[in-house]
């Protein structure tokens, strides 16, 4: 078209110029001077551009006229069959709506670029222990320093810690959530402050001069009223004499991980102390140099790990580095799930197209006479195709409009009800990319749907079709085959999705059926950080006293059944790792086991609901006095309770009660005597083996990072204000953070699984409905088309029940044919989704059979009505109608 248009313009241009030249020549012949002749000619001629324009418009008018006429014909003929039109538009709306919504979800989560400059170059790096099978752990400062110095493919690298709550000094203490980050943190993310210069290079700081904060935009507004002169402003933090200087405010849209109020520099002091080589409590994010790949980075990290293991075997042997793109770190398993969603929704869209194509085929069949007449009147094959295409486009456009509306609504619904733990929810939206996909889906759906019915028109024998007076000509057979194929396709797609939905449903059941070993319901968890007098150097005894008083105060509060101090809130993503070794004395090459450490108060067992298997739980007497806790006296042996896994690992076949173990590396209370064993618990994840859990009594080893677990008598969320009040009554300067019902943390762990199940189940249901409608439509068409034949059979003595069964068989056999393909597709899909499934090695016969049963049952019901109609055929009526 473009080519033709250019050709047209060139022709017209040349023609007009030639005309002008001839006119000029005529005036010259008439005796005018060359100048005058040209002027006269131009004057007579008028504006060539306008003539050009008007001439071209003539063609445009025709083109638009044709389209308008085709549209009018399409709308008129669609209006004559409202049931068909409604069915087709609704099918398109569902298919395109589901496709658009699902694409929006998948794109927002897995494909939309992260909001950082060159985000594809940002990676997370972890340490993994090959000996203990711990993957993607946090990183020690020693390892970080080795990467920073020795890995050339890294442009910037930064540590970041967990966030913590501090209190701003003042009359009413304002909490401020602070995260320690390497000064290069913002360089890694390619972000610059809105106000101020941000951090200086790390070399410009020491641990004691790093009193500079970069504020978040929200904190700038909330804590400093959006003070325009914020840069350089000083403020004080409780318990700290040194002023904090504000050196920057980040832009409003800057975010990384959980929101915080401020960032402060984390400085790695060189040389890295031995203890900091073994403490793996920080996270690493890095930016690759332009042009370097993550594989190059991995190769370099391997070299660095080997060197570390040689140089520092005590702290680095067995540890390797694991790098992954930041996006993968954020979205986790949802990357793969997004592909699954796209695949599933493509199947639904295909089923929808097959459906409409089937409807259009049936319609074409009903229109054989109309078509024949049009052909007789001189309509070419192309013209017919144009008409049908227009019809399909009208249907698809109407469907797409409704579908995009539906998608918008679905996405809003999903965002509102997004399960906790669904990454990047704020990035899910029906916007340009999704609309582009909707457009592509619409156009291709319309094309497919219009072209499939055309398959049957080739052998149209005109006189035959006209004279036969009904739809029995050669193309009926072709059409029948097309419609069979379409039904097979639909039922196959539906079956695959139904099986997938069943498998994901069962996987989710497996997941929720896992026994956690404790009871998360009605338990509230929170971080509490009481401020202690600044002049006490080792406030451990104060923490012990504070905890006892606080627990007593809480348990006296109505609505609270039990309360306990701990160091770990289950399922909140933070654990305290330690290694333990058997016995009292160090042995060369002794075995060490990684455990997670819980330092808990006496009421802990009842608060979280642990099951005691052997020995005893802690009592109020499991305590050290002040002299021990302030290191003034000798450190006696402590007691510990361990989980069954620990007992099995360390003392297989022995009675664990009375055994002793050490916590090398963790200073105080080095020797522990096991006094009790509790059933295994899952505190970090539902899937996988339970971790080795060690419990120590709080009064023997209080720490400065207490957390609180409170069991409510009714609803955990309801007691939050009372808990807060009690904590502040005990110590008004207590930072309170992350107040969350623990059950919702557990749900968060299973939420992705639940979401995947729900989405796949919805798509499966949709595909099933589409298949049912498709089968119904196809069989109805066959029954109508075969009415004569049926009438003759009945006239010749075929019984109604035999007629019905033969109709049913005709309707269901394409379903069965499609089902075979669908089962195969299901097996492959489940294989591809393996890593998203819990407790499934591969798809099992039960799921396949159930899926097949469901699809057959539903399509059987869909076939009943047309089959009954066939059985009730009145031969006299039908044959008389001829």
């Amino acid at each position: 078209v473009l080519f033709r248009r250019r050709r047209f313009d060139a022709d017209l241009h040349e023609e007009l110029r030639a005309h002008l030249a001839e006119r000029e020549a005529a005036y010259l012949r008439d005796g005018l001077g060359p100048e005058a002749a040209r002027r006269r000619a131009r004057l007579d001629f008028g504006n060539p551009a306008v003539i050009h324009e008007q001439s071209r418009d003539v063609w445009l008018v025709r083109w638009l006229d044709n389209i308008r006429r085709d549209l009018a014909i399409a709308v008129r003929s669609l209006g004559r069959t409202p049931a068909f039109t409604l069915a087709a538009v609704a099918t398109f709306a569902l298919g395109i709506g589901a496709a658009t919504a699902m694409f929006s979800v998948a794109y927002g989560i897995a494909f939309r670029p992260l909001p950082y400059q060159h985000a594809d170059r940002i990676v997370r790096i972890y340490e993994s222990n090959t000996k203990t099978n711990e993957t993607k752990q946090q990183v020690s400062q020693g390892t970080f320093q080795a990467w920073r110095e020795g890995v050339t493919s890294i442009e910037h690298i930064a540590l970041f810690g967990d966030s913590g709550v501090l209190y701003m000094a003042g009359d009413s203490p304002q909490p401020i959530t602070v995260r320690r980050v390497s000064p290069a943190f913002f360089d890694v993310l390619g972000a610059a402050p809105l106000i101020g210069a941000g951090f200086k290079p790390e070399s410009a700081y020491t641990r004691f001069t790093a009193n500079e904060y970069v504020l978040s935009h929200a904190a700038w507004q909330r804590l400093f009223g959006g003070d325009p002169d914020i840069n350089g402003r000083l403020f004080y933090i409780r318990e700290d004499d040194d002023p904090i200087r504000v050196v920057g405010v980040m832009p409003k849209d800057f975010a990384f991980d959980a929101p915080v109020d401020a960032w402060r520099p984390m400085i790695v002091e060189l040389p890295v102390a031995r203890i900091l080589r073994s403490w793996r409590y920080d996270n690493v994010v890095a930016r690759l140099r332009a042009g370097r790949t993550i594989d190059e980075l991995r190769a370099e990290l391997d070299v660095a790990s080997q060197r570390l293991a040689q140089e520092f075997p005590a702290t680095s042997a067995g540890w390797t580095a694991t790098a992954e793109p930041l996006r993968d770190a954020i979205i986790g398993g949802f990357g793969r799930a997004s592909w699954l969603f796209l695949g599933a929704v493509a199947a639904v869209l295909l089923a929808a197209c097959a459906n409409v194509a089937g409807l259009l085929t049936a319609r074409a069949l009903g229109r054989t006479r109309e078509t024949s007449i049009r052909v007789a009147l001189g309509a070419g094959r192309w013209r017919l195709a144009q008409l049908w295409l227009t019809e399909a486009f009208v249907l698809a456009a109407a469907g797409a409009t409704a579908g995009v509306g539906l998608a918008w609504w679905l996405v809003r619904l999903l965002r509102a009800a997004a399960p906790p733990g669904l990454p990047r929810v704020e990035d899910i939206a029906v916007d340009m990319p999704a609309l582009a996909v909707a457009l592509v889906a619409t156009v291709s759906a319309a094309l497919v749907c219009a072209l499939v019915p055309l398959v049957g028109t080739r052998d149209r024998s005109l006189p035959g079709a006209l004279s036969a007076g009904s739809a029995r000509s050669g193309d009926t057979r072709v059409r029948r085959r097309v419609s069979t194929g379409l039904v097979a396709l639909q039922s196959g797609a539906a079956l695959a999705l139904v099986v997938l939905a069943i498998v994901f449903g069962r996987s989710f059941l497996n997941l929720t059926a896992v026994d956690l070993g404790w009871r998360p319901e009605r338990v509230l968890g929170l971080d509490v950080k009481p401020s202690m007098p600044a002049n006490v150097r080792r406030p451990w005894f104060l923490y012990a006293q504070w905890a006892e008083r606080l627990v007593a105060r809480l348990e006296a509060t109505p609505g609270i059944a039990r309360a306990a101090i701990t160091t770990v809130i289950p399922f909140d993503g933070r654990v305290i790792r330690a290694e333990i070794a058997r016995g009292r004395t160090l042995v060369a090459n002794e075995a060490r086991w990684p455990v997670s450490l819980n330092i808990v108060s006496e009421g802990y067992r009842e608060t979280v609901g642990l099951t005691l298997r052997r020995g005893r739980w802690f009592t109020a007497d499991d305590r050290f006095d002040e002299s021990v806790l302030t290191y003034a006296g000798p450190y006696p042996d402590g007691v510990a309770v361990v989980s069954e896994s620990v007992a099995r690992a360390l003392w297989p076949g022995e009675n664990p009660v009375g055994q002793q173990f050490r916590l090398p590396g963790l200073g105080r209370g080095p020797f522990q005597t096991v006094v009790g064993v509790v059933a295994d618990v899952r505190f970090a994840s539902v899937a996988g083996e339970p971790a080795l859990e060690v419990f120590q009594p709080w009064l023997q080893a209080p720490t400065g990072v207490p957390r609180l677990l409170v069991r409510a008598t009714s609803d955990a969320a309801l007691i939050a204000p009372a808990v807060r009040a009690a904590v502040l009554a005990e110590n008004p300067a207590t930072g309170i953070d992350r107040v969350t019902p623990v059950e919702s943390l557990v749900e968060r762990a299973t939420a992705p699984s639940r979401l995947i199940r729900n989405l796949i189940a919805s798509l499966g249901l949709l595909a099933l409905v589409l298949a049912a409608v498709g089968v119904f439509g196809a069989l109805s068409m066959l029954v109508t088309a075969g009415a004569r034949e049926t009438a003759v059979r009945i006239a010749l003595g075929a019984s109604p029940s035999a007629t019905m069964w033969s109709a049913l068989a005709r309707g269901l056999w394409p379903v069965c044919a499609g089902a075979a393909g669908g089962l195969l597709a299901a097996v492959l899909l489940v294989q591809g989704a393996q890593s998203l499934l819990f407790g499934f090695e591969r798809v099992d016969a039960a799921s396949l059979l159930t899926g097949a049963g469901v699809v057959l049952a539903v399509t059987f019901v869909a076939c009943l009505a047309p089959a009954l109609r066939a059985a009730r055929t009145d031969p006299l009526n039908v044959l008389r109608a001829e």
Partner: protein
Amino acid sequence: MLVSAMPKEPMLPGTLELLVLRTLAIEPMHGYAIAQHIQKLSKDALKIEEGSLYPALQRILVKKWATAAWRESLNGRRIRVYTLTAAGQKQLGLEKARFHVLYGAIRNVLKGA
């Protein structure tokens, strides 16, 4: 949206196409020659404006009453020559008849006055 392609002198609607078809019935010719011809045959009474002629020619092409092809003229110019098709011939007959009906009707009205 579209500028009407009527000539500036008042002329009965559709007559320009009739004149062009009639002219092309004599022999295939290019735009300039068509305009000259009409002017000559009408003894300079009708002056065809290019602003009307070319859109009219395009309408004739759209309706496939004529085809256009580039040729070399006697004096060596490249010209685009329009040739009447069978459909154009038929259309000329129709238009002529229509014109005569219209012309007769108008004359009757004028006579009656």
